[in-house]
């Protein structure tokens, strides 16, 4: 068994286990050690992931495990995002008795996502989805004495259980068609002969299951609840990490479908519905965390645009990853800001933030503008790549719809900007602590700096590809 090919995953499991054991034996005030352990584990996993960069696209474990630059980039973004979320956590949770175990769950959530990024067989797909779901249910309900948290946890769990069941049905249908779970075999068999009805049903089921992880229509409704009810670092984690894994997994999955099967049309509709619903629901929100949740739904819709045109242009996969990286940076910056502000969420509580906490207000504005796609922020390059490949893939209507949605999104972002900048502060604003404040600031600088240094990011990401073995050229 080529164990070396899954070293990053193994390191996460090992780290999570060590943390669990330490958390059991360490006194509560020493749980900060677990934070450090989690950060170290993530750094090691990151190093091991980057070590795979030089390996050219290859398949491992009898072709069901992909090691390619698409996976490496996605995993790096996931691990980096998890790192940020862990940085935000200690001050949020240090009064909690279960502080240590929390990191085990975080690491398992990240593990599920990176398994998704490499999954090249439907069993691995299921494993990734289930792992990241199961680990994150308790995270959402971590504040078990606070009703919104348990409510969000319950909704998230119910939606997740349904979605995972549907995903399983889809995988079973496909297995029934071809008798295998490896993508390579499925692809060859489907290309040779496939019952179109079962194929459609199977694809629809798998898509629905992944839509849950992506927070995309029709299983997007948990996202705003989780954003509002979960601990803010968890909301940050779940709005970014599983999304990236699922987007890459979906991109891998659609490539096994036969050429004459018109999945792009279906995906385009899902993308259109997701971005429009997310934006329209965000328009009248008066709650910052819910707003971020809905805006995150709409961003998934944009990401799906790139998957839609995946087989029509080579630029789609890089576009997807650049966009996800840009989204992750800005979204994490926003959730970091909310964490630093002790999770304040009512719009009214943001009045006059620019006077009390100018740096955080500025980070929020810059991140909003990056999500809108104002140059030269990082988000702009993501949107640019996305629009460019969507047009190239001849889905002009989708690009036009995305533009209309972008204008709507600016509207609701500006509502908060106005409150922060043009209303007088009514109360003093306490911060959570220096660490989350520093993280917020660093993320804000990242949004700008990565935009200015876009060449470096693009040069890396433009080399990505998927390992497809001997099928699909």
């Amino acid at each position, binding site marked *: 068994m080529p164990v070396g090919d899954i070293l990053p995953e193994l390191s996460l499991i090992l780290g999570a286990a060590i943390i669990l054991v330490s958390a059991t034996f360490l006194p509560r005030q020493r749980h900060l050690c677990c934070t450090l352990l989690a950060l170290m584990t993530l750094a090691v996993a990151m190093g091991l992931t980057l070590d795979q960069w030089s390996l050219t696209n290859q398949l491992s474990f009898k072709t069901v495990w992909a090691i390619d630059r698409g996976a490496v980039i996605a995993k790096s973004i996931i691990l980096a995002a998890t790192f940020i979320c862990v940085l935000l956590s200690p001050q949020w949770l240090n009064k909690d008795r279960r502080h240590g175990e929390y990191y085990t769950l975080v690491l398992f959530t990240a593990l599920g996502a990176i398994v998704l990024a490499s999954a090249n067989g439907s069993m691995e797909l299921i494993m990734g989805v289930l792992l990241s779901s199961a680990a994150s249910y308790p995270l959402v309900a971590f504040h078990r004495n606070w009703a919104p948290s348990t409510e969000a946890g319950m909704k998230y769990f119910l939606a997740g259980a349904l979605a995972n069941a549907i995903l399983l049905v889809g995988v079973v249908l496909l297995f029934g068609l071809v008798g295998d779970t490896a993508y390579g075999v499925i692809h060859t068999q489907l290309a040779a002969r496939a019952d179109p009805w079962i194929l459609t049903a199977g694809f629809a089921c798998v898509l629905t299951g992944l839509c849950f992880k992506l927070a995309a229509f029709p299983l997007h409704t948990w996202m705003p609840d989780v954003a509002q009810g979960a601990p803010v670092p968890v909301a940050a984690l779940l709005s970014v990490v599983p999304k990236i894994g699922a987007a890459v997994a979906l991109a891998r999955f659609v490539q096994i479908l036969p050429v004459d099967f018109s999945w792009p049309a279906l995906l385009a509709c899902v993308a259109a519905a997701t971005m429009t619903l997310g934006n329209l629901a965000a328009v009248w929100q008066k709650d910052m965390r819910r707003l971020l949740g809905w805006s995150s739904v709409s961003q998934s819709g944009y990401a799906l645009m790139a998957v839609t045109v995946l087989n029509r242009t080579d630029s789609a996969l890089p576009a997807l990853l650049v966009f996800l990286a840009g989204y992750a940076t800005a979204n994490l910056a926003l959730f970091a800001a909310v964490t630093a502000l002790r999770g304040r969420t009512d719009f009214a509580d943001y009045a006059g933030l620019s006077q009390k906490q100018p740096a955080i207000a500025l980070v929020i504005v810059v991140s909003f503008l990056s999500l809108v796609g104002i*140059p030269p922020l990082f988000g702009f*390059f993501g949107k640019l790549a996305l629009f460019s490949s969507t047009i190239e893939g001849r889905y002009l209507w989708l690009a036009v719809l995305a533009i209309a949605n972008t204008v709507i999104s600016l509207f609701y972002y*500006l509502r908060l900007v106005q409150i922060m*900048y*043009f209303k007088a502060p009514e109360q003093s604003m306490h911060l959570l602590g220096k660490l989350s404040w520093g993280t917020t600031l660093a993320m804000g600088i990242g949004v700008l700096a990565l935009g200015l240094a876009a060449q470096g990011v693009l040069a890396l990401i433009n080399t990505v590809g998927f390992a497809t073995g001997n099928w699909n050229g």
Partner: protein
Amino acid sequence: MILTISLLVPLLAALLLAFPLHWPQRYYRGFATGIALVPCLLLVIAWVNFDTRGSLFQHVHEVPWVPSLGMAWRVGADGIALAVATMSSFLIAGAAFYPVDTYGRARQYYAWILFLQAVSLGVFLALDLLLFYVFFDLNLVAMYFLIARWGHGKARFAATKFFLFTLCGSLALLLGILGLYLSVEPRTFDMRILIEQQPLAGTGLLASLVFLGLMVGLIIKTPLAPLHTWLPQAHVDSPGPVSAILAGVLLKMGTYGMIRIPYSMMRQTFEQYALAIAVLALVSILYGALVALAQHNLKRRIAYTSINHMGYTVLGIAAAGALMSDSPMAQRLALTGATVEMVAHGLITGSLFFITGSFWQRTREYDLDAYGGLAAKAPVLAFAMVLAAFASFGLPGLAGFVAEFQIFAGTFAIYPWLASIGLLGILITAALFLQMLQKLFFGSLPQRWTEFTDLGRDERLVLAVLLLAVVVIGIYPNVLLGPIEASVTLLVGRP
């Protein structure tokens, strides 16, 4: 290099002002004015050194930025860009110097003004489509904060409407830009290559869609009726100097963009749709003038005349791009006129909005009917306003006349009917300005304005410089025409 420096100086100064400095409030204005004059000086030097027999774009400076996208820091200018950029930098320097109430936030106000100067110059001087778009969008951010923070009335509503409306235009423009980018091999945003290759030659569906995207974006910015509705509100609620920049500089981005992108890069498609654009321009000319005539609010009235004047500019551009190429002379005249109109409108309407800012500082009142008899009370203000108003409706000997004469002379040879109907616009503007002057300055002085003071020293200085330029261009247009005509000849002469 000289153009890059003229961009970077205000940009870096704006960044400096973004940090809490704790200087005395009055220092900021002097600092900002001093910095804003640097690009003015550099651009004048660039203007003097412009070689009228040289290539289209001069003073080119190129630094790689995002080569994997074909994007680079490319700046350079032809005569058209240089004329508009120089006018803009002077107008913004004037805006920085013009006294205004900053509500105790002088540092932030002048930081945004300097930032606005940098990104505005960026739009006119960029030779890279994506860089152009970057600056085009950053303008919106700066303008949003200037209006929302320092405006009056329903300032936040106006600012939001402005941002949303023009972002919509920007994104349409972005789609068009991407269409151009995707159609050239190897892919690049370099304007020089796109102008040379004319990648979407022809009138296929794709070319028409790209053209539509570009034009919708630029028309919203210009703005032409019926996409102008963001403009009056944004103008009325901005502080005077910001209005001056909005009218004098930001509107030019629309018309300049038309010359630079669709006109230069998609000439065949432009020819196909030139008549439609000309008709749209004519509608704006008449609609802008008529609606302005109906306004009782001083600032709204001037704002609507902008729609009318930008209509002249677009008419000139459309005539210059029309299919009948048997009259290149007339087309050159029309395009030169359109460029001069941009410069003239910037100076004239900029002055008018500065004066409305002075009115607001003194009276907090824009209603024309509330005024009267101010000529005796404030003779200098009255003189400046009369001069600017006369220039605006095109009195011979002033800059507006040179521009409108060239536009109409050129358009007559190409679209005689449109030009004749368009002349009505000038008639109506003359009426509305005369009526405005009469209401403000003649008749009896209402009791409440007995304390009205004349323009102060700083206000006089700014207006004197701008109006002097208006007179000089009016009497001796050749100071402006050399480089413009050189570039126009190269642009129109293209097949």
